[in-house]
């Protein structure tokens, strides 16, 4: 009976569990994950709105709904938002919430660093979008090719917001990558060997390595742009000998691993969700692990397939064409393994399962057009047309977004103790399926018929007006699906079906060996893991260890305001570059220094 009081000790600072201060100072991975998720979903709607405005403009030829300049801002921000403010952060939301639970840990390796990553993301996202208030949102495409990004061709603040904003976000990502790699290596529960980890944790691991290797390249490249614009360097000035093709190399050395950063988490999610809803272990677990690692590695060797039009020569073209086609192999292995998992399983067509099936189908479809792009002569016809737009939206909406939604519907009951409505969920799913295909399938056609991307209108003589109208309608249907999801969320908090069952879906992995929702300390006692599917093989044994009374006092890292304090400094250091003088950013740097010193010497016992 003494143990009942000896359970949790958080020292010194009174830690109120409610109220905004408790969220501002939280270092709990579950809360940070929720903050990431809410913020990312908010920006999903922002990016979606940008997409709808684009589609209204393109619904008919020679339209004047928006000007060319506004259109450029819209497609740039749509891409930038969806990639940096939605795709990556929503994956981090899942990493945050799930990885410690899946490996049997109480938190991540560096809880305060985790919080810092979130606040930098939030402030960076706000900084980037503040550009709209000045009518100067980034307008050079999410990839900002030089020399368009030079002062000479882009004299306004647009490119400054872009280069500085993405720089800020990159810093947050790298910190997260370091955190998750360390967490996965060092905080696995006893018996949780690498080859017993859930696939989602594995893909988190590979993605984190991609993040820490690719983002620094982008960061330095963005400094080249920023210094060219503010401090007079000549990196991309053709008159001084600067080469714009260098920008392309550096950007795509980041940019290609980036798309694997985007999709691997979704691969991980469906690899964990499908077995749960088919009551069958993941087919070919080892191959799924190796293929994830291989995709990560080969993904670093394909970047110049974005540059087939730059005249690298046939040998370079062939090298990158071959590597691009080769990466389809481990990817295909995954697709077959997901199908084999379903084959012969007791499939329950729940909403998560439907989203998984959609993901597998539409990602494969998008992967095929990707293979088309990998053949240089074909690529030369397809580049800069809507064929490319079709490809990446199939893999990103059909693959990433569907995978994310599978995860949302699957883990929602664990997070909140409530089910999302199956009826609304299925409506959400079908609206996405119909809308998405109506939007992006015709883009293959208009692309091959010559409609260029990133141009604010097209002539009537192309006779593409009707198809574009269909595409636009598809876009609105997709948006309706997103609205249905929002309604589902709101409704579920008002009168959703509740549950306190630790494992309402009957799933197999360790995050289900917790109360619903999980306690702040995750596990009453860290479990001793004996298999790859602990909640199928020994559920009672797991729950007996992980729920109920803790056998020893649990110490949790105390809340701290130094992460948000330091995040302010990071933003200041970066944003003050906009003054064009060299010394204001040092104020931000000093702020960061003060934050770090206090952080380092803060008592956490």
């Amino acid at each position: 009976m003494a143990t009942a009081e000896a359970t949790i000790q958080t020292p010194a600072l009174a830690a109120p569990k409610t109220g905004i201060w408790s969220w501002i100072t939280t270092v709990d991975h579950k809360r940070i994950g929720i903050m990431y998720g809410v913020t990312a979903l908010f920006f999903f709607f922002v990016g979606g709105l940008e997409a709808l405005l684009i589609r209204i403009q393109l619904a008919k030829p020679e339209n004047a709904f928006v000007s060319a300049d506004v259109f450029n801002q819209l497609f740039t921000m749509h891409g930038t938002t969806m990639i940096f403010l939605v795709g990556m952060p929503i994956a981090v939301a899942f990493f945050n919430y799930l990885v410690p639970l899946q490996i049997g840990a109480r938190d991540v390796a560096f809880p305060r660093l985790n919080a810092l990553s979130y606040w930098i993301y939030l402030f960076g996202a706000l900084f980037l979008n503040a550009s709209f208030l000045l009518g100067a949102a980034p307008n050079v495409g999410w990839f900002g090719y030089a020399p368009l990004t030079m002062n000479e061709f882009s004299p306004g603040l647009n490119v400054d917001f872009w280069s500085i904003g993405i720089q800020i976000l990159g810093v947050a990502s790298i910190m997260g990558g370091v955190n998750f790699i360390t967490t996965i290596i060092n905080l696995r529960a006893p018996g949780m060997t690498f080859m017993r980890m859930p696939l989602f944790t594995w893909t988190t691991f590979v993605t984190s390595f991609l993040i820490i290797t690719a983002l620094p390249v982008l960061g330095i490249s963005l400094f080249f742009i920023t210094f060219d614009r503010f401090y007079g360097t000549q990196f991309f000035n053709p008159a001084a000998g600067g080469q714009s093709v260098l920008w392309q190399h550096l950007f795509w050395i980041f940019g290609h691993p980036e798309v694997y950063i985007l999709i691997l988490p979704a691969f991980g999610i469906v690899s964990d969700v499908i077995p749960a809803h088919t009551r069958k272990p993941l087919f070919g677990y080892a191959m799924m692990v190796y293929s994830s690692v291989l995709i990560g590695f080969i993904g670093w060797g394909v970047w110049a397939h974005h540059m087939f039009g730059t005249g690298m020569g046939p040998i370079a073209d062939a090298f990158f064409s071959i590597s691009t086609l080769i990466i389809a192999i481990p990817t295909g292995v995954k697709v077959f393994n997901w199908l084999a998992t379903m084959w012969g399983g007791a499939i329950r067509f729940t909403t998560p399962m439907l989203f998984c099936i959609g993901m597998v189908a539409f990602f494969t479809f998008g992967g095929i057009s990707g293979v088309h792009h990998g053949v240089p002569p074909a690529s030369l016809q397809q580049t800069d047309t809507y064929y490319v737009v079709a490809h990446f939206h199939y893999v990103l909406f059909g693959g990433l977004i569907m995978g994310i939604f599978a995860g949302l519907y699957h883990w929602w009951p664990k997070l909140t103790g409530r089910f999302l409505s199956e009826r609304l969920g299925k409506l959400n799913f079908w609206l996405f399926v119909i809308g998405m295909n109506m939007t992006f399938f015709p883009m293959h056609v208009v692309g091959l018929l010559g409609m260029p991307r990133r141009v604010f209108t097209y002539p009537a003589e192309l006779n593409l007006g009707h198809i574009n109208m269909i595409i636009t309608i598809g876009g609105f249907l997709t948006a309706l699906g997103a609205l249905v999801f929002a309604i589902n969320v709101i409704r579920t908090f008002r009168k959703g079906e509740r549950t306190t069952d630790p494992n309402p879906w009957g799933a197999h992995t360790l995050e289900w060996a917790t109360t619903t929702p999980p306690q702040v300390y995750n596990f009453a006692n860290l479990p001793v893991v004996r298999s790859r599917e602990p909640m199928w093989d020994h559920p009672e044994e797991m729950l007996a260890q992980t729920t109920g009374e803790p056998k020893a006092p649990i110490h949790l890292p105390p809340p701290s305001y130094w992460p948000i304090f330091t995040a302010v400094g990071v933003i200041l250091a970066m944003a003050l570059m906009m003054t064009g003088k060299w010394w204001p950013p040092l104020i931000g740097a000093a702020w960061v220094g003060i934050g770090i010193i206090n952080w380092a010497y803060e008592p956490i016992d």
Partner: protein
Amino acid sequence: MAELGTGGNDTIAAKEQAGSGNRLYWLVALVLTILTLAEVAAVHIPALNPVIVPILVVLSAVKFVLVVMFYMHLKGDHRVYTAVFVAPLTLAVGAVIIMMLIIFKVLAYV
């Protein structure tokens, strides 16, 4: 700083090796100095010009490896440290080499 641990096996090993460890560090410092002087000398010998690039690459690589293995203690440490350092380094070197081969048109035409 409770979250940082005490250094585990690193500390115990170091205590035992204190004397011999220090001698090793001074020796490595001497070798690093000699290698640096060798590099500087090599670039001033015109006869070596045709092979100066490989010579410099090798000499600097040896310096790099000595510092990493002995000062950063990768040799003798848990191999996970080596893994998390070498994996990104491999990608860095590989990508840089390929990028330079393309830009300098070495990897271009048959």
